[in-house]
């Protein structure tokens, strides 16, 4: 049984589907639900990722059902809305997503989709009521719909691109750095001669989704990419590779080597590319060393975020930057099976640190874990800022939701992402150290009034 949640950060299935659709150029979500569902998504997701609002406002098509439709059914309202959406809104693909009320009422969304399809409209659908699950569930439902229904829409034949690799499991906005992370993973795959199919973000359109079946490999960047990868393995026999987490720094090199092996790519070429990336990062670390030592970077940290972030960031912070994981909180509701995998994975990573690993999405519970954990640095969402301030600790926003932070295409994945993380985290630790120094000056001159006068 699910529990109530204080400060819920995982939104709902409908919102997860919207996040995916909005990140595909030319795809138009058609919401069949109350007026407020899309608006909630805009406030509670898009606006908490400032700088990543693709449409310039709330979703552009919503059937806004009213009492009449609740009582008598809303299928005809959806029919009307779909037809008019195609006339009003520019798009290559119209994607119907349903909310709680229309699902409870029992509107026949597949039938309405079929009607549209019969009129040659490029339409697909997914049943995404919020009561079916959270944002991650919604992402998976929408991906599944795309994989299963898109082939029926394809008219022309496809031209195969050798070395194509699809990327899965990066959920727009739920990872605030999704766009930059995808771009960097793409850059790295290109670096070893592959053709990444990012599927989401700038320049990624419906065409890319049509090419999904042609890939040589599907990479799951998070546990939420496993289902799509598995589905594609079943349908097209494409091999799949699941990463342990977001590949930050050296982990990106390991990813490239694993991909090379899987695809039989020249190992030496890959190794040489990895070496050059590795060397640049190490030079950056060396150029940071003076600051690292004098500002006391070697802190015990608390990290709150999605499983891929927690694994990826804590691996980099621990295995490269020398920090110590004290409190790790995974917030994305993994399945029991995934939890077990994550637990053993992280147990190996954090062995000997006395790290406390928890799974929670409750703001109050998470704040309590940080408070009792005793870390000297907090990385988390805007929701964790309060407890970090209360404890007087340096704090970096790395996970959803963000507040007061604009993200365009900054990312923390790969080698470039590792440098960005060094900049952001380094600035947080250094400025905290300087502030502490200055405020102790103040303290001194305050206490001075007692001793010196």
């Amino acid at each position, binding site marked *: *049984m*699910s*529990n*109530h*949640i*204080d*400060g*819920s*950060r995982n*939104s*709902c*299935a*409908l*919102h997860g589907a919207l996040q995916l659709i909005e990140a595909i150029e030319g795809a138009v979500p058609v919401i069949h639900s*109350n*007026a*407020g569902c*899309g*608006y909630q*998504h805009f*406030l*509670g*997701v898009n*606006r*908490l990722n400032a700088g990543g*609002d693709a*449409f*310039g*406002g*709330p*979703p*552009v*098509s*919503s059937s*806004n*059902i*009213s*009492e009449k*439709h609740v009582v008598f059914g809303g299928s005809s309202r959806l029919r*009307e*809305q779909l037809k*008019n*959406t195609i*006339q*009003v*809104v*520019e798009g290559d693909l119209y994607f119907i997503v349903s*909310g*709680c*009320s229309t699902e*409870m*009422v029992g509107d026949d969304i597949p039938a309405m989709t079929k009607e549209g399809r019969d009129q040659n409209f490029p339409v697909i659908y997914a049943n995404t*009521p*919020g*009561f*079916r699950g*959270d944002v991650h569930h919604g992402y998976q439902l929408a991906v599944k719909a795309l994989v299963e229904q898109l082939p029926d829409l394809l008219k022309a034949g496809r031209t195969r691109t050798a070395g194509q690799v699809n990327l899965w499991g990066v959920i727009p906005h739920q990872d605030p750095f999704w766009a930059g992370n995808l771009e960097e993973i793409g850059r790295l795959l290109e670096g070893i001669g592959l053709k990444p199919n990012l599927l989401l973000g700038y320049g990624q359109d419906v065409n890319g989704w049509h090419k999904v079946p042609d890939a040589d490999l599907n990479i799951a960047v998070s546990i939420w990419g496993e289902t799509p990868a598995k589905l594609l393995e079943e349908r097209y026999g494409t091999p799949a590779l699941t990463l342990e987490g977001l590949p930050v720094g050296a982990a990106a090199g390991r990813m490239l080597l694993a991909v090379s092996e899987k695809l039989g790519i020249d190992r030496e070429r890959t190794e040489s590319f990895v070496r050059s990336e590795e060397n640049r990062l190490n030079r950056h670390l060396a150029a940071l060393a003076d600051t690292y030592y004098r500002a006391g970077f070697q802190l015990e940290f608390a990290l709150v975020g999605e499983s891929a972030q927690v694994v990826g960031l804590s691996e980099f912070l621990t295995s490269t930057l020398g920090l110590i994981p004290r409190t790790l909180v995974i917030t994305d509701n993994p399945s029991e099976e995934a939890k077990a995998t994550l637990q053993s994975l992280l147990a190996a990573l954090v062995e000997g640190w006395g790290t406390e690993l928890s799974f929670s999405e409750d703001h109050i519970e998470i704040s309590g874990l940080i408070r009792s954990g005793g870390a000297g640095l907090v990385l988390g969402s805007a*929701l964790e800022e309060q407890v970090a301030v209360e404890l007087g600790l340096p704090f970096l926003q790395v996970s959803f*939701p963000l*507040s007061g932070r604009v993200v365009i295409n900054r990312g923390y994945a790969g080698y470039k992402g590792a440098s960005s993380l060094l900049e952001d985290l380094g600035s947080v630790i250094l400025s905290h150290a300087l502030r502490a120094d200055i405020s102790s000056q103040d303290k001194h001159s305050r206490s001075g009034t007692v001793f010196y006068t």
Partner: protein
Amino acid sequence: MSLLKAKSPRIREKRLDTLNAWLGDTAAAIAEFSGEDTVQRIRTFSQGAQDDLLYVLRLLAGIRNSVTIIHAPRGCAAAGLYHQVTSGRGHWIVSNLDQRDTIMGADRKLRKAVTAAHRQYRPEVIFIVASPVTAINNDDIQAVVEELHEELELPVVPVYVTGFASRNAVTGYDIALHSILKHSGGDRRVHQRSSKVNLLSVVEHPADRFEAERLLSSLGVDLNILPDGASSKTFRLATEARLSLSLDQDSENYLGVILRDEYRVPYIEQPRPVGVEATGRWLVAAGRALGIEDAASVLHEQESERVRRELGDFSLEGVRVYLALSPATAFAVADLVGEFGGEVAGITVSHLDKLHTARLEVLSRRSPALQLHVADGQPFEELNIVRRIAPDIYLGDAAHLGQVGRLGIPVVSLENTPVLGYNGVTGLARSLSLALRNRSFGAALAGIPTSYTGAWYRRSPNWHIKKEVR
């Protein structure tokens, strides 16, 4: 007898004939409300918009020492997350209904959530906000409320919102205010009147509230502000106040009426104090009711002199302005645009109802040709209209200004901009002046296409607005 007997208030459509879709000139608008029964309009194509649930949450975000439990699937708490993260307001718990709950009900879950909220926060009041799912399911919130109210010795206030019963989000304010007053209102029997004056402020910008406070306090008025920033005690004190002053009739009307009709607190419903003249009239009206009219007039003279000085040679002479705001604000800002010497080129209001007929008549006399558009969150219509009108600047408070910006025109957001009182005048003048002076951001956005087809832009903006068939 009492309005508060009902579980929730009548929806705006029924209470005030409120329209949320309409296009026409001001004379036609007046005609709409002159008959017995206004014909509702619907849209055959629509876009996501605020609903009453969202307005309920916005209002409750401002109640002090409260916790709000949204009895719904998890996504309905997204707006709560927004308020918490961006302005540190409210404590938000979602009961997180899953598929099984939608079939079996979820009393136990709700009970657990309320108990946890009580233990964690020790609030003065806990709100339980209903949702589309609980409305469709007919969940028995009342039983939980009664049981836990006893057990926790704490007001547990149910807020019966549906998300679909009304097409006007503003109904949500009525629902929230109704629920609060019903459950924590004072004694309805004969009251000793206190010296306090209620200042009715519903989700106003904090700076706007301060401006109203600043003016009234300087006249020695002892204020009791609600519902923004109010505690339970504030609501009790409100019923004993000597007077209620309005800041925005659209949002507060129901509160003022209840306090007047149920608790006999006189209610002055004056247009919003936006612009020098309207602020003066608002101040003087308050002064008159409180027997300090002269002092109010003197204050107005001083302040308007200061504003004149600060404005210098600022003018909107020759500037055509489009307004897209909630109605009371839109009409008030329209007057201010006039004060500045500018021309209102068109208006979109989020709704329109009987409360606005007087303002419509004034507007109709002044600008008979002015086109009025009624829409909340329908940028496809707005962009169609604005492209035709091609104003010099657009003032709005909606969430879709990012779409409007792609038309390449200067945009000023009033979502987080104070507009009330004398300080509102100088602040708005500054924003307008900056936006008109440097239009380069709009020019950059103009390179990005809007979401709509060429075919749509060739159609009439009201193509998808139809009379509702009943």
